[in-house]
Protein backbone atom coordinates (compact mmCIF):
# COMPACT_ATOMS: atom_id res chain seq x y z
CA UNK A 1 0.00 0.00 0.00
CA UNK A 2 1.28 3.46 -0.89
CA UNK A 3 1.69 6.10 1.78
CA UNK A 4 1.83 9.87 1.58
CA UNK A 5 4.55 11.68 3.53
CA UNK A 6 1.87 12.61 6.08
CA UNK A 7 0.96 8.98 6.82
CA UNK A 8 2.72 8.91 10.20
CA UNK A 9 1.17 12.21 11.18
CA UNK A 10 -2.33 10.90 10.40
CA UNK A 11 -1.74 7.77 12.46
CA UNK A 12 -0.42 9.58 15.51
CA UNK A 13 -3.13 12.24 15.38
CA UNK A 14 -6.29 10.18 15.54
CA UNK A 15 -6.67 9.42 11.86
CA UNK A 16 -8.68 6.32 10.99
CA UNK A 17 -6.85 4.94 8.00
CA UNK A 18 -8.42 3.00 5.16
CA UNK A 19 -7.29 1.68 1.82
CA UNK A 20 -8.25 4.04 -1.00
CA UNK A 21 -7.09 3.56 -4.62
CA UNK A 22 -4.05 1.69 -3.36
CA UNK A 23 -3.22 4.36 -0.77
CA UNK A 24 -3.37 4.21 3.02
CA UNK A 25 -5.46 7.33 3.69
CA UNK A 26 -7.37 8.86 6.61
CA UNK A 27 -11.13 8.55 6.18
CA UNK A 28 -11.66 10.71 9.27
CA UNK A 29 -9.95 11.87 12.46
CA UNK A 30 -11.11 11.70 16.08
CA UNK A 31 -13.44 14.69 15.81
CA UNK A 32 -15.46 12.85 13.17
CA UNK A 33 -16.72 13.40 9.66
CA UNK A 34 -19.48 15.83 10.55
CA UNK A 35 -17.22 18.09 12.65
CA UNK A 36 -14.64 18.10 9.86
CA UNK A 37 -17.29 18.93 7.29
CA UNK A 38 -18.67 21.77 9.42
CA UNK A 39 -15.20 23.17 10.15
CA UNK A 40 -14.60 23.42 6.40
CA UNK A 41 -17.91 25.20 5.87
CA UNK A 42 -17.44 27.67 8.75
CA UNK A 43 -13.67 27.99 9.27
CA UNK A 44 -11.13 26.06 7.23
CA UNK A 45 -10.27 22.42 6.64
CA UNK A 46 -7.01 20.74 5.65
CA UNK A 47 -6.88 17.79 3.29
CA UNK A 48 -3.90 15.61 2.50
CA UNK A 49 -4.37 15.07 -1.22
CA UNK A 50 -0.80 13.97 -1.89
CA UNK A 51 -2.16 10.80 -3.48
CA UNK A 52 -3.36 12.79 -6.51
CA UNK A 53 -1.29 12.23 -9.66
CA UNK A 54 0.68 14.85 -11.59
CA UNK A 55 2.02 14.71 -15.14
CA UNK A 56 4.07 17.45 -16.80
CA UNK A 57 3.86 18.19 -20.55
CA UNK A 58 7.02 20.05 -21.53
CA UNK A 59 8.47 20.99 -24.90
CA UNK A 60 7.78 22.94 -28.09
CA UNK A 61 4.50 21.09 -28.75
CA UNK A 62 3.25 20.79 -25.17
CA UNK A 63 0.11 22.83 -25.87
CA UNK A 64 -0.63 20.89 -29.04
CA UNK A 65 -0.38 17.64 -27.10
CA UNK A 66 -2.55 18.77 -24.17
CA UNK A 67 -5.12 20.16 -26.61
CA UNK A 68 -5.18 16.79 -28.35
CA UNK A 69 -5.79 14.98 -25.04
CA UNK A 70 -8.47 17.36 -23.71
CA UNK A 71 -11.82 18.24 -25.35
CA UNK A 72 -11.39 21.71 -23.84
CA UNK A 73 -9.70 24.62 -25.56
CA UNK A 74 -6.58 24.66 -23.39
CA UNK A 75 -4.94 27.27 -25.64
CA UNK A 76 -7.09 29.93 -23.97
CA UNK A 77 -5.14 29.44 -20.73
CA UNK A 78 -2.60 32.14 -19.96
CA UNK A 79 0.46 31.54 -17.85
CA UNK A 80 -0.70 31.04 -14.26
CA UNK A 81 -4.23 29.91 -15.13
CA UNK A 82 -5.85 26.52 -14.75
CA UNK A 83 -9.05 24.91 -15.94
CA UNK A 84 -11.21 21.86 -15.24
CA UNK A 85 -11.39 19.38 -18.10
CA UNK A 86 -11.16 15.64 -18.81
CA UNK A 87 -9.46 13.07 -21.02
CA UNK A 88 -11.83 11.23 -23.35
CA UNK A 89 -11.27 7.82 -24.92
CA UNK A 90 -12.00 7.03 -28.57
CA UNK A 91 -15.60 6.10 -27.73
CA UNK A 92 -16.09 9.50 -26.10
CA UNK A 93 -16.16 8.07 -22.58
CA UNK A 94 -14.26 9.68 -19.73
CA UNK A 95 -10.77 8.36 -18.91
CA UNK A 96 -10.49 10.81 -16.02
CA UNK A 97 -11.47 14.34 -15.07
CA UNK A 98 -8.60 16.64 -14.20
CA UNK A 99 -7.17 20.13 -13.89
CA UNK A 100 -4.69 21.58 -16.39
CA UNK A 101 -2.25 24.24 -15.17
CA UNK A 102 -0.43 26.48 -17.66
CA UNK A 103 3.12 27.11 -16.41
CA UNK A 104 4.39 28.59 -19.72
CA UNK A 105 2.13 29.25 -22.67
CA UNK A 106 2.70 26.72 -25.44
CA UNK A 107 5.55 24.85 -23.74
CA UNK A 108 4.81 23.83 -20.14
CA UNK A 109 1.60 22.39 -18.65
CA UNK A 110 0.89 20.28 -15.58
CA UNK A 111 -2.16 18.04 -15.26
CA UNK A 112 -3.48 16.81 -11.91
CA UNK A 113 -5.45 13.54 -12.06
CA UNK A 114 -7.26 11.22 -9.64
CA UNK A 115 -5.16 8.79 -7.60
CA UNK A 116 -7.37 5.93 -8.74
CA UNK A 117 -6.59 6.72 -12.38
CA UNK A 118 -2.90 7.59 -12.26
CA UNK A 119 -1.72 4.33 -13.87
CA UNK A 120 -4.49 4.41 -16.47
CA UNK A 121 -3.64 8.00 -17.39
CA UNK A 122 0.04 7.08 -17.71
CA UNK A 123 -0.89 4.31 -20.16
CA UNK A 124 -3.33 6.53 -22.03
CA UNK A 125 -0.65 9.17 -22.55
CA UNK A 126 1.84 6.55 -23.76
CA UNK A 127 -0.69 5.20 -26.26
CA UNK A 128 -1.65 8.51 -27.83
CA UNK A 129 1.36 10.77 -27.41
CA UNK A 130 3.16 9.65 -30.53
CA UNK A 131 3.37 12.55 -32.91
CA UNK A 132 4.18 15.46 -30.65
CA UNK A 133 7.49 17.05 -29.84
CA UNK A 134 6.84 16.96 -26.10
CA UNK A 135 8.25 15.24 -23.08
CA UNK A 136 5.68 13.89 -20.62
CA UNK A 137 7.09 13.54 -17.12
CA UNK A 138 5.38 11.57 -14.36
CA UNK A 139 5.82 13.86 -11.33
CA UNK A 140 3.60 11.89 -8.93
CA UNK A 141 6.53 11.15 -6.62
CA UNK A 142 7.78 14.72 -6.60
CA UNK A 143 4.75 16.45 -5.16
CA UNK A 144 2.88 16.42 -1.92
CA UNK A 145 -0.45 18.21 -2.07
CA UNK A 146 -2.50 19.92 0.61
CA UNK A 147 -5.94 21.41 0.04
CA UNK A 148 -6.90 24.28 2.36
CA UNK A 149 -10.60 25.00 2.04
CA UNK A 150 -13.16 27.18 3.76
CA UNK A 151 -14.22 30.79 4.35
CA UNK A 152 -11.08 31.47 6.45
CA UNK A 153 -8.69 29.68 4.09
CA UNK A 154 -7.55 32.74 2.16
CA UNK A 155 -6.61 34.92 5.14
CA UNK A 156 -4.99 32.03 7.02
CA UNK A 157 -2.79 30.84 4.17
CA UNK A 158 -1.88 34.49 3.49
CA UNK A 159 -0.36 34.64 7.01
CA UNK A 160 1.92 31.78 6.09
CA UNK A 161 2.56 32.47 2.41
CA UNK A 162 2.24 36.21 1.72
CA UNK A 163 0.79 37.14 -1.64
CA UNK A 164 -1.52 34.20 -2.21
CA UNK A 165 -4.63 36.29 -1.48
CA UNK A 166 -4.10 38.10 -4.79
CA UNK A 167 -4.67 34.96 -6.83
CA UNK A 168 -7.93 34.90 -8.76
CA UNK A 169 -10.15 31.83 -8.85
CA UNK A 170 -8.50 29.09 -10.94
CA UNK A 171 -5.23 31.00 -11.12
CA UNK A 172 -2.00 29.86 -9.48
CA UNK A 173 1.53 31.00 -8.81
CA UNK A 174 4.85 29.96 -7.38
CA UNK A 175 5.53 31.12 -3.82
CA UNK A 176 8.31 30.72 -1.29
CA UNK A 177 7.77 28.80 1.91
CA UNK A 178 10.68 27.90 4.19
CA UNK A 179 13.24 28.14 1.36
CA UNK A 180 11.17 25.91 -0.87
CA UNK A 181 9.14 26.82 -3.92
CA UNK A 182 5.45 25.94 -3.72
CA UNK A 183 2.73 26.04 -6.34
CA UNK A 184 -0.41 27.55 -4.87
CA UNK A 185 -3.63 27.37 -6.88
CA UNK A 186 -6.95 28.96 -5.97
CA UNK A 187 -8.93 25.81 -6.68
CA UNK A 188 -10.69 23.17 -4.65
CA UNK A 189 -13.12 20.33 -4.36
CA UNK A 190 -15.43 21.39 -1.54
CA UNK A 191 -17.55 24.25 -2.88
CA UNK A 192 -15.62 26.65 -0.64
CA UNK A 193 -13.00 29.21 -1.54
CA UNK A 194 -9.46 28.09 -0.82
CA UNK A 195 -6.24 26.74 -2.20
CA UNK A 196 -4.68 23.56 -3.41
CA UNK A 197 -0.98 23.69 -2.63
CA UNK A 198 1.61 21.57 -4.41
CA UNK A 199 4.68 21.17 -2.22
CA UNK A 200 7.94 19.33 -2.75
CA UNK A 201 7.45 16.07 -0.80
CA UNK A 202 10.16 17.01 1.71
CA UNK A 203 8.26 20.18 2.69
CA UNK A 204 4.74 18.77 2.90
CA UNK A 205 4.91 17.86 6.57
CA UNK A 206 6.26 21.25 7.61
CA UNK A 207 3.52 23.06 5.72
CA UNK A 208 0.83 20.73 7.09
CA UNK A 209 1.96 21.28 10.67
CA UNK A 210 2.06 25.05 10.18
CA UNK A 211 -1.50 24.98 8.82
CA UNK A 212 -2.69 22.85 11.75
CA UNK A 213 -1.10 25.37 14.12
CA UNK A 214 -3.04 28.17 12.41
CA UNK A 215 -6.24 26.35 13.40
CA UNK A 216 -7.00 24.31 10.29
CA UNK A 217 -9.13 21.21 10.88
CA UNK A 218 -7.56 18.06 9.43
CA UNK A 219 -10.25 16.39 7.30
CA UNK A 220 -10.41 12.85 5.98
CA UNK A 221 -11.73 11.39 2.75
CA UNK A 222 -15.19 11.08 4.33
CA UNK A 223 -15.66 14.83 4.70
CA UNK A 224 -13.99 15.40 1.33
CA UNK A 225 -16.73 13.29 -0.23
CA UNK A 226 -19.69 14.91 1.56
CA UNK A 227 -18.31 18.39 0.81
CA UNK A 228 -17.86 17.71 -2.89
CA UNK A 229 -21.24 16.00 -3.11
CA UNK A 230 -23.05 19.02 -1.62
CA UNK A 231 -21.16 21.19 -4.11
CA UNK A 232 -22.18 18.75 -6.90
CA UNK A 233 -18.62 18.19 -8.07
CA UNK A 234 -18.09 15.02 -10.03
CA UNK A 235 -16.29 12.04 -8.55
CA UNK A 236 -14.68 9.65 -11.00
CA UNK A 237 -16.11 6.15 -10.57
CA UNK A 238 -19.42 7.60 -9.37
CA UNK A 239 -20.58 10.31 -11.79
CA UNK A 240 -17.94 9.53 -14.42
CA UNK A 241 -16.58 6.39 -16.05
CA UNK A 242 -15.02 5.05 -19.25
CA UNK A 243 -18.40 4.36 -20.84
CA UNK A 244 -20.43 7.43 -19.92
CA UNK A 245 -21.63 10.18 -22.24
CA UNK A 246 -19.92 13.39 -21.05
CA UNK A 247 -22.94 15.44 -22.16
CA UNK A 248 -25.04 13.49 -19.68
CA UNK A 249 -22.52 14.05 -16.87
CA UNK A 250 -22.35 17.82 -16.51
CA UNK A 251 -19.22 18.03 -18.69
CA UNK A 252 -20.80 19.54 -21.80
CA UNK A 253 -19.62 23.05 -20.87
CA UNK A 254 -15.99 21.93 -21.00
CA UNK A 255 -16.21 20.56 -24.55
CA UNK A 256 -15.15 22.63 -27.54
CA UNK A 257 -16.22 20.95 -30.79
CA UNK A 258 -15.32 23.90 -33.03
CA UNK A 259 -11.56 23.76 -32.48
CA UNK A 260 -8.74 21.35 -33.28
CA UNK A 261 -9.06 17.60 -33.29
CA UNK A 262 -8.87 15.75 -29.96
CA UNK A 263 -9.09 12.13 -28.89
CA UNK A 264 -12.69 10.99 -29.11
CA UNK A 265 -13.92 14.07 -30.98
CA UNK A 266 -16.05 12.35 -33.60
CA UNK A 267 -17.57 10.05 -30.98
CA UNK A 268 -18.31 12.99 -28.70
CA UNK A 269 -19.97 14.87 -31.57
CA UNK A 270 -22.32 11.93 -31.99
CA UNK A 271 -22.87 11.60 -28.23
CA UNK A 272 -24.01 15.21 -28.07
CA UNK A 273 -27.03 14.33 -30.19
CA UNK A 274 -27.68 11.15 -28.25
CA UNK A 275 -27.80 12.66 -24.78
CA UNK A 276 -31.09 11.47 -23.30
CA UNK A 277 -30.13 11.57 -19.63
CA UNK A 278 -28.62 14.10 -17.27
CA UNK A 279 -27.33 14.42 -13.72
CA UNK A 280 -29.79 15.99 -11.31
CA UNK A 281 -30.02 16.59 -7.60
CA UNK A 282 -32.50 14.58 -5.54
CA UNK A 283 -33.62 15.44 -2.06
CA UNK A 284 -35.27 12.58 -0.25
CA UNK A 285 -38.51 13.37 1.55
CA UNK A 286 -37.91 10.43 3.86
CA UNK A 287 -35.13 9.76 6.33
CA UNK A 288 -33.69 6.91 4.27
CA UNK A 289 -30.44 7.77 2.53
CA UNK A 290 -29.94 7.30 -1.21
CA UNK A 291 -26.69 5.52 -2.13
CA UNK A 292 -24.76 4.96 -5.35
CA UNK A 293 -26.44 2.35 -7.55
CA UNK A 294 -29.97 2.67 -6.14
CA UNK A 295 -32.60 2.83 -8.90
CA UNK A 296 -34.68 5.93 -9.52
CA UNK A 297 -38.28 5.66 -10.77
CA UNK A 298 -40.96 7.97 -12.03
CA UNK A 299 -44.50 6.59 -11.74
CA UNK A 300 -42.95 3.20 -11.05
CA UNK A 301 -40.97 3.23 -14.31
CA UNK A 302 -37.21 3.11 -13.92
CA UNK A 303 -35.59 6.32 -15.21
CA UNK A 304 -32.00 6.00 -13.94
CA UNK A 305 -29.92 5.52 -10.83
CA UNK A 306 -28.15 7.31 -8.01
CA UNK A 307 -24.47 8.06 -8.73
CA UNK A 308 -23.65 9.46 -5.25
CA UNK A 309 -25.72 9.79 -2.10
CA UNK A 310 -25.30 10.70 1.52
CA UNK A 311 -26.85 12.42 4.47
CA UNK A 312 -25.93 16.05 3.80
CA UNK A 313 -24.21 17.36 6.93
CA UNK A 314 -24.96 20.98 5.95
CA UNK A 315 -28.67 20.47 5.20
CA UNK A 316 -29.16 17.50 7.53
CA UNK A 317 -31.21 15.85 4.78
CA UNK A 318 -30.60 12.80 2.60
CA UNK A 319 -29.37 13.92 -0.82
CA UNK A 320 -28.25 12.23 -3.98
CA UNK A 321 -26.94 12.97 -7.44
CA UNK A 322 -28.81 10.86 -9.97
CA UNK A 323 -28.31 10.03 -13.63
CA UNK A 324 -31.85 10.06 -15.02
CA UNK A 325 -33.98 10.41 -18.14
CA UNK A 326 -34.17 14.17 -18.87
CA UNK A 327 -37.86 14.09 -19.70
CA UNK A 328 -38.88 12.70 -16.34
CA UNK A 329 -36.67 14.71 -14.05
CA UNK A 330 -37.28 18.41 -14.26
CA UNK A 331 -36.73 20.67 -11.29
CA UNK A 332 -39.60 20.27 -8.84
CA UNK A 333 -40.67 16.87 -10.23
CA UNK A 334 -41.34 14.15 -7.77
CA UNK A 335 -39.60 10.82 -8.31
CA UNK A 336 -39.01 7.71 -6.22
CA UNK A 337 -35.78 6.09 -5.11
CA UNK A 338 -35.74 2.35 -4.58
CA UNK A 339 -34.05 2.02 -1.21
CA UNK A 340 -33.66 -1.68 -0.41
CA UNK A 341 -36.98 -2.53 -2.04
CA UNK A 342 -38.92 0.41 -0.60
CA UNK A 343 -39.92 3.26 -2.93
CA UNK A 344 -39.04 6.51 -1.19
CA UNK A 345 -40.31 9.87 -2.50
CA UNK A 346 -37.75 12.46 -3.55
CA UNK A 347 -37.83 15.83 -5.24
CA UNK A 348 -35.67 16.90 -8.17
CA UNK A 349 -33.74 19.95 -7.01
CA UNK A 350 -31.28 22.41 -8.48
CA UNK A 351 -27.57 21.55 -8.23
CA UNK A 352 -25.46 22.30 -6.31
CA UNK A 353 -27.10 21.44 -3.01
CA UNK A 354 -24.84 23.93 -1.28
CA UNK A 355 -23.26 27.18 -2.38
CA UNK A 356 -20.71 29.16 -0.37
CA UNK A 357 -21.92 32.59 0.74
CA UNK A 358 -18.95 34.57 -0.56
Amino acid at each position, binding site marked *: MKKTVLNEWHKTNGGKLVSFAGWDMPV*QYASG*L*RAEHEATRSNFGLFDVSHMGEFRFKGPEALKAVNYFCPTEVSKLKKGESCYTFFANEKGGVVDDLLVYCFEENTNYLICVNASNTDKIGEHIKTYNKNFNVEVINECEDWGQIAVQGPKAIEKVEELIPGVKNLNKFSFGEFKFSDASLVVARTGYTGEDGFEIFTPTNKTKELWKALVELGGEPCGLGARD*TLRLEAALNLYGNELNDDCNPYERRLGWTINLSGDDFIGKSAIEALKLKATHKLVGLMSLDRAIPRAGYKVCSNEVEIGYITSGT*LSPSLNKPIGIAWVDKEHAKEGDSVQINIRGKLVDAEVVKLPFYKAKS
Partner: protein
Amino acid sequence: MAYKVPDDLYYTKEHEWAYVDENIVTVGITGYAQDSLGEIVYVDLKEEGQKVTQNESFGVVESVKSVSDLMAPVTGTVIEVNQSLFDKPGTLNDDPWNDGWLLKIEMDTEKELAALLKAADYKKLIAQ
Protein backbone atom coordinates in the same frame (compact mmCIF):
# COMPACT_ATOMS: atom_id res chain seq x y z
CA MET B 1 -8.06 0.20 22.76
CA ALA B 2 -9.90 -2.32 24.90
CA TYR B 3 -13.63 -2.57 24.23
CA LYS B 4 -16.23 -3.56 26.77
CA VAL B 5 -17.57 -7.08 26.12
CA PRO B 6 -20.12 -8.15 28.76
CA ASP B 7 -19.82 -11.81 29.77
CA ASP B 8 -23.54 -12.56 29.91
CA LEU B 9 -24.21 -11.97 26.21
CA TYR B 10 -23.83 -13.94 23.00
CA TYR B 11 -22.15 -12.39 19.94
CA THR B 12 -22.10 -12.71 16.17
CA LYS B 13 -19.04 -12.39 13.95
CA GLU B 14 -20.75 -9.33 12.45
CA HIS B 15 -20.66 -7.55 15.83
CA GLU B 16 -24.23 -7.94 17.08
CA TRP B 17 -24.87 -8.90 20.68
CA ALA B 18 -27.75 -11.11 21.88
CA TYR B 19 -29.19 -11.22 25.38
CA VAL B 20 -31.19 -14.37 25.97
CA ASP B 21 -34.03 -14.47 28.51
CA GLU B 22 -35.79 -17.84 28.10
CA ASN B 23 -37.03 -17.73 24.48
CA ILE B 24 -36.80 -13.94 24.06
CA VAL B 25 -33.60 -12.60 22.51
CA THR B 26 -32.78 -8.88 22.68
CA VAL B 27 -30.39 -7.80 19.94
CA GLY B 28 -28.02 -4.84 19.61
CA ILE B 29 -24.65 -3.89 18.15
CA THR B 30 -21.43 -3.94 20.14
CA GLY B 31 -19.32 -1.01 21.29
CA TYR B 32 -16.69 -2.09 18.82
CA ALA B 33 -19.29 -1.98 16.00
CA GLN B 34 -20.54 1.51 16.79
CA ASP B 35 -16.99 2.82 17.07
CA SER B 36 -16.02 1.31 13.70
CA LEU B 37 -19.13 2.71 12.02
CA GLY B 38 -18.70 6.25 13.30
CA GLU B 39 -21.69 8.51 13.82
CA ILE B 40 -24.84 6.52 13.05
CA VAL B 41 -27.41 8.67 11.25
CA TYR B 42 -30.05 6.20 10.07
CA VAL B 43 -31.52 2.89 11.21
CA ASP B 44 -33.90 0.64 9.30
CA LEU B 45 -35.30 -2.47 11.01
CA LYS B 46 -37.78 -5.24 10.35
CA GLU B 47 -41.18 -4.62 11.89
CA GLU B 48 -43.05 -6.29 14.69
CA GLY B 49 -44.49 -9.59 13.54
CA GLN B 50 -41.95 -10.15 10.77
CA LYS B 51 -39.73 -13.21 10.62
CA VAL B 52 -35.96 -13.02 10.90
CA THR B 53 -33.49 -15.75 10.01
CA GLN B 54 -30.16 -16.52 11.65
CA ASN B 55 -27.23 -15.00 9.71
CA GLU B 56 -29.57 -13.01 7.49
CA SER B 57 -30.13 -9.26 7.46
CA PHE B 58 -32.83 -7.82 9.73
CA GLY B 59 -32.08 -4.21 8.85
CA VAL B 60 -29.31 -1.69 8.29
CA VAL B 61 -27.47 1.01 10.17
CA GLU B 62 -25.93 3.85 8.20
CA SER B 63 -23.23 6.35 8.90
CA VAL B 64 -22.90 9.42 6.68
CA LYS B 65 -20.46 7.42 4.63
CA SER B 66 -21.71 3.85 4.52
CA VAL B 67 -24.48 1.29 4.89
CA SER B 68 -24.02 -1.82 7.06
CA ASP B 69 -26.34 -4.81 7.25
CA LEU B 70 -27.50 -6.06 10.62
CA MET B 71 -27.37 -9.85 10.90
CA ALA B 72 -29.83 -11.80 13.02
CA PRO B 73 -28.26 -13.96 15.73
CA VAL B 74 -31.25 -16.34 15.76
CA THR B 75 -34.30 -17.31 13.72
CA GLY B 76 -37.66 -16.19 15.00
CA THR B 77 -40.35 -13.50 15.06
CA VAL B 78 -39.83 -9.83 15.89
CA ILE B 79 -41.95 -9.01 18.94
CA GLU B 80 -40.70 -5.52 19.72
CA VAL B 81 -38.73 -2.80 17.94
CA ASN B 82 -36.85 0.05 19.61
CA GLN B 83 -38.85 2.86 17.99
CA SER B 84 -36.82 5.61 19.68
CA LEU B 85 -33.86 4.82 17.43
CA PHE B 86 -35.64 6.15 14.34
CA ASP B 87 -35.63 9.65 15.81
CA LYS B 88 -32.34 9.27 17.64
CA PRO B 89 -30.06 6.86 15.78
CA GLY B 90 -27.14 8.41 17.69
CA THR B 91 -28.27 6.39 20.74
CA LEU B 92 -26.48 3.48 19.05
CA ASN B 93 -23.22 5.38 19.49
CA ASP B 94 -23.93 6.68 22.96
CA ASP B 95 -25.29 3.53 24.57
CA PRO B 96 -25.11 0.46 22.29
CA TRP B 97 -25.48 -1.98 25.22
CA ASN B 98 -28.65 -0.62 26.83
CA ASP B 99 -30.77 2.19 25.33
CA GLY B 100 -29.45 1.31 21.88
CA TRP B 101 -31.02 -2.16 21.75
CA LEU B 102 -32.52 -2.81 18.30
CA LEU B 103 -35.23 -5.40 18.61
CA LYS B 104 -36.56 -8.38 20.53
CA ILE B 105 -36.97 -11.72 18.83
CA GLU B 106 -39.03 -14.68 19.95
CA MET B 107 -36.66 -17.42 18.87
CA ASP B 108 -37.78 -20.62 17.21
CA THR B 109 -35.16 -22.89 18.70
CA GLU B 110 -32.51 -22.60 21.39
CA LYS B 111 -30.29 -24.90 19.38
CA GLU B 112 -29.14 -21.99 17.23
CA LEU B 113 -27.42 -20.40 20.22
CA ALA B 114 -24.64 -22.94 19.86
CA ALA B 115 -23.55 -21.21 16.65
CA LEU B 116 -23.01 -17.86 18.42
CA LEU B 117 -19.80 -16.60 20.00
CA LYS B 118 -19.26 -16.42 23.75
CA ALA B 119 -17.73 -13.26 25.22
CA ALA B 120 -14.23 -14.73 25.37
CA ASP B 121 -14.34 -15.69 21.68
CA TYR B 122 -15.72 -12.32 20.67
CA LYS B 123 -12.95 -10.57 22.59
CA LYS B 124 -10.42 -12.58 20.61
CA LEU B 125 -12.18 -11.68 17.34
CA ILE B 126 -11.99 -7.93 17.88
CA ALA B 127 -8.45 -8.11 19.23
CA GLN B 128 -7.26 -9.37 15.83
